[in-house]
């Protein structure tokens, strides 16, 4: 849960990267993602990671990215062990382990610097149905609300003598019931109220709703996209067509 909220939930920021067109941010993350798949040596992989760390620092999200990397390292440790057992190839195993971290970070950078409003624009660009886009936006919008609900429910039940940490595994799972049922009931009630409020605000009135905000690529966006594509081209060329670059 911590990992998820730290690594993937948007928080307002004010860096050049936050202000970029969401499409530029998406493209950049996709390119970083692909580059990690192209890297064939640990050295190349480290280069990619160094680039991501630099970018995170420039985007003022280095702390969060570092924490995400630390959490992800637990999983990639597991990937490493499994790989060593099956392939008996230390270098490949290390490569896979780092690649996993790099993949998570490339996606995380996109999500933590892109507001749900911008995500919505990106989804619209892909011509996803309005209902799907709206469901996504609402889900993201209500994450903090549901977290607050959960805390209040837990407080109420603990005040009635519920001890979550008590007993064996089965007992502990059963202890979750008094938390989960009110949470579900509240969500159902909430969605009913949301549906009414949507109707009252003419949701679905016209097949092609308009939008208050438009994203027009500015010079900065074009510049960043060009730089990202150029970097990617160099990386792709050297990582793929040249012999794997190893530590000097």
């Amino acid at each position: 849960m911590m990992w998820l909220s730290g690594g993937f939930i948007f928080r307002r920021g004010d860096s050049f990267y936050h202000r970029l067109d969401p499409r530029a941010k998406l493209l950049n993350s996709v390119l970083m993602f692909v580059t990690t798949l192209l890297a064939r040596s640990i050295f190349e992989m480290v280069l990619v990671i160094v680039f991501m760390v630099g970018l995170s620092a420039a985007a003022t999200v280095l702390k969060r990215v570092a924490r995400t990397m630390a959490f992800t390292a637990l999983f990639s440790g597991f990937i490493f062990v499994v790989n060593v057992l099956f392939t008996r190839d230390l270098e490949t195993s290390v490569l896979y382990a780092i690649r996993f971290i790099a993949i998570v970070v490339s996606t995380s950078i996109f999500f933590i610097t892109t507001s749900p409003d911008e995500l919505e624009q990106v989804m619209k660009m892909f011509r996803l149905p309005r209902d799907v886009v709206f469901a996504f936006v609402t889900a993201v919008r209500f994450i903090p609300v549901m977290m607050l609900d959960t805390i209040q429910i837990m407080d109420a039940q603990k005040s009635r003598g519920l001890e979550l940490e008590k007993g064996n595994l089965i007992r502990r799972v059963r202890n979750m019931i008094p938390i989960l049922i009110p949470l579900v009931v509240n969500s159902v009630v909430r969605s009913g109220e949301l549906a009414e409020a949507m109707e009252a605000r003419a949701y679905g009135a016209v097949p092609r709703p308009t939008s208050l905000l438009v994203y027009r690529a500015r010079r900065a966006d074009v510049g960043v996209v060009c730089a990202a594509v150029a970097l990617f081209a160099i990386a792709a060329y050297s990582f793929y067509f040249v012999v794997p670059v190893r530590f000097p």
Partner: protein
Amino acid sequence: MADILKVEGLSFRYPDSPKNAVSDFELSIPEGEIVVLAGPSGCGKSTLLRTVNGLIPHMYGGEYSGDVLVAGSSVKRSSMRDLAQTVGFLFQNPENQIFMFSVERDVAFGLENLGVPREEMRARVDEALRLLRIGDLAQRAPHELSDGQKQRVALAGVLAMRPKLVILDEPTSLLDPKTASELVALVARLRKELGTTFVVVEHRLDLLVGVADRLVVMDGGRKVLEGTPRDVLFRDEAEAHGVAVPAVTKVQKLLAERETGRAAAGRLLTPSGLASAVEGRQA
């Protein structure tokens, strides 16, 4: 002035319910009034409101007879699209009516749904933000707002659609008293500036009687009392119908029963007004 809302012999029963939620209801509201709807919990207020903005019968089915006319057109024959532009609805919990991640996007939500062109939308959003004096919050996310601010944002989203009639369903129940009275003052100001009609469901009458033109009391799905706030609150039955008669009004009523001085005047007195009335009697 023309009636903005006319309820004619309305009865409604939810499916699987043994009795009517609203029975033989009649109501006429002239344009520009502030009307307070009161009554005990479960008296049918919420149902009545939903027949006005069309959630009943367009979203909820049930046994429906009679008619509701908003600005002269029948609700059951109007589309939700048209109704959304004539009747605004502010729900009790502001949290559940803010959809977007920024205030200005949320205020624009209804206009986006109606397909209003961007330039016009921009102007109407800015106007709504200015009316509610929340321009400085335009870029905030919902979880960065206080309860009072959320309620204002939700109301801005409603007003941006330029409704003629706005329904407020217990708008202050989650607010503290000062924030609540600020909201009531806001409603009075909007009525003056825009000429909008407001129908407000509220338990806390002490906040509202000063600005309301009319008080309607419901009980058991029926209209049991109607009149100016003074006339209704001076009736002995008011309390029996679960109406919270403000303390100072109770005193005024006691005094009015004894003599016809200022206390018995045609309007409700504030605490200081009542003190003046008593002082006058002394001299």
